[in-house]
């Protein structure tokens, strides 16, 4: 087996084993940390599908996290305080359906426009749509505007209780594994070959008869829906949502997680999220000026570590 495969298995095993150990040794906070890590990793994995494998640099991906989280927050808000009976609900299945559905719809509508553009224009127009959603929620007073919305009750699911930190973690972990497997299946399929071909040379693929626009749009929608699901989990984890979660710098952070770990690889985005969150946690506990070393680290990775951490693991001779 390749070294990268081994690394993937070992790292995922560690993610499975460590949090329960933290819990039983009385370090509940680190379970929280791991949960946030795993949820953001799902978002990064979804971004990797279009950014890494599709070559579509979306600078507005955090919008889907917000949509997913509000898809939990808004129904819970109405169920708790009354009003809008049609969407008032504590039901987890309903929340996930809305999170995934609305995210997919938003991706479809905005993707149809964004994918007409290329290069920097694409980067910037995806950001513009992210900012639109950001300002939209900032101005909806009903849902707390920029103060955000406190989610009073977590989604109700059969068999499990999301109020239990370990159960919530387990759900997020399983979701991450499924997301990784989904992306792997997609990129290796015939669809995935077209997607990757279009990343390398779009004109060539068009000449072969592929309507690459449709393939890209499909990938964009799948990615958005997957990220919306991560958002629903995040809402359940933080029990709080604010428009802040979808600003452009949050989208930049997601992009960075993918690149840091290694884009267009299986483990890359997960590893990237892990290092990102741990560095953030460690540096910010040392100094309030932690953005300085953090920024230097960011620049260092971009300047000197092409291929990200997975590039390092892969080594030279191993393909």
């Amino acid at each position, binding site marked *: 087996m390749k070294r990268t495969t081994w690394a993937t298995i070992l790292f995922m095993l560690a993610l499975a084993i460590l949090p329960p150990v933290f819990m039983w040794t009385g370090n509940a906070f680190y379970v929280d940390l791991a949960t946030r890590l795993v949820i953001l990793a799902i978002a990064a994995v979804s971004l990797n599908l279009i950014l890494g494998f599709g070559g579509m640099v979306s600078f507005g991906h955090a919008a889907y996290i917000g949509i997913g989280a509000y898809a939990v927050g808004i129904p819970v808000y109405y169920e708790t305080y009354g009003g809008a009976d049609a969407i008032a609900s504590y039901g987890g299945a309903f929340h996930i359906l809305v999170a995934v559905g609305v995210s997919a719809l938003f991706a479809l509508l905005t993707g149809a426009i964004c994918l007409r553009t290329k290069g920097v224009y694409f980067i910037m127009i995806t950001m513009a749509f992210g900012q639109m959603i950001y300002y939209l929620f900032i101005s909806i007073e009903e849902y707390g505007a920029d103060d955000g919305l406190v989610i009073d009750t977590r989604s109700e699911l059969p068999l499990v209780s999301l109020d239990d930190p370990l159960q919530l973690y387990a759900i997020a972990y399983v979701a991450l594994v499924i997301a990784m497997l989904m992306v792997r299946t997609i990129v290796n399929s015939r669809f995935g070959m077209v997607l990757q071909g279009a990343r390398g040379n779009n004109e060539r*693929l068009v000449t*072969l008869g592929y309507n690459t626009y449709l393939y890209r749009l499909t990938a964009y929608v799948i990615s958005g829906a997957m990220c919306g699901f991560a958002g629903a989990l995040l809402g359940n984890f933080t029990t709080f949502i604010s428009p802040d979660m979808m600003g452009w710098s949050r989208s930049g952070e997601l992009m960075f997680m993918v690149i840091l770990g290694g884009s267009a690889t299986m483990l890359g985005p997960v590893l990237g999220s892990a290092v990102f969150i741990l560095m953030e946690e460690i540096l910010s506990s040392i100094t309030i000026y932690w953005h300085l070393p953090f920024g230097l680290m960011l620049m260092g990775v971009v300047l000197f570590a092409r291929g990200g951490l997975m590039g390092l693991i892969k080594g030279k001779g191993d393909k």
Partner: protein
Amino acid sequence: MSALLKISNLCKSFGGVTATDNVNLEVEPGELHAIIGPNGAGKTTLISQLSGALPPDSGKITFKGMDITNRPAHARARLGITRSFQITSLVMDMSVLDNVALAVQARQGHSFRFLKPARSIRALRDEALDMLGRVGLEARAEQPTVALSHGEHRQMEIAIALATGADLMLLDEPMAGLGPQESVAMIEFLKGLKGERTILLIEHDMDAVFALADRITVLVYGRIIATGNPDEIRGNDDVRHAYLGEE
């Protein structure tokens, strides 16, 4: 017998410069039709309009009796037009085999299939290897495309064009940048294709053109000044004056 491709009154200009000037041309099924002309004659512009990469300003393009003037590039490819590029255009970060397999996959219909790993599909793989075999690249199949030489890239372009199963192949200077021996091999290879596929060939290498072409069209400043078999073209005064004489 009706023409496979019919171009009527095609015009295209870029900000005052006329690149395609009222071009009329018919390509018969099975023939190898060469287009020659000095640099800047508008040969590549013409090909791009045929493949759908550039929209013409006016005129009409008919393929297999259908008006395709306003169809997008990918739709024309599905009808059976493929092109190779003057400057190598391959998916550099994929393997040689994957490049060709994508062409096979394109011919087999839409690729909105998400589950089965593409590389494990025998039908795709075998046919792609077969095409690579025809251009003598089967040994390089698993290499990353970027690792191949320029000459091999040109061969890959041909393998891909073949793999699409297109009826009409638009070949834009397949000999460009090849060494003498590679050129000879390419000419032999294209000879072998004659009759099997209809080919519209742009080429600077006159030896190749006169050795291969059934008919030749001479394009100067976007205008056709002559069309005929190689002997007719050789004997044409206009051509000699406007083009061959210059060399």
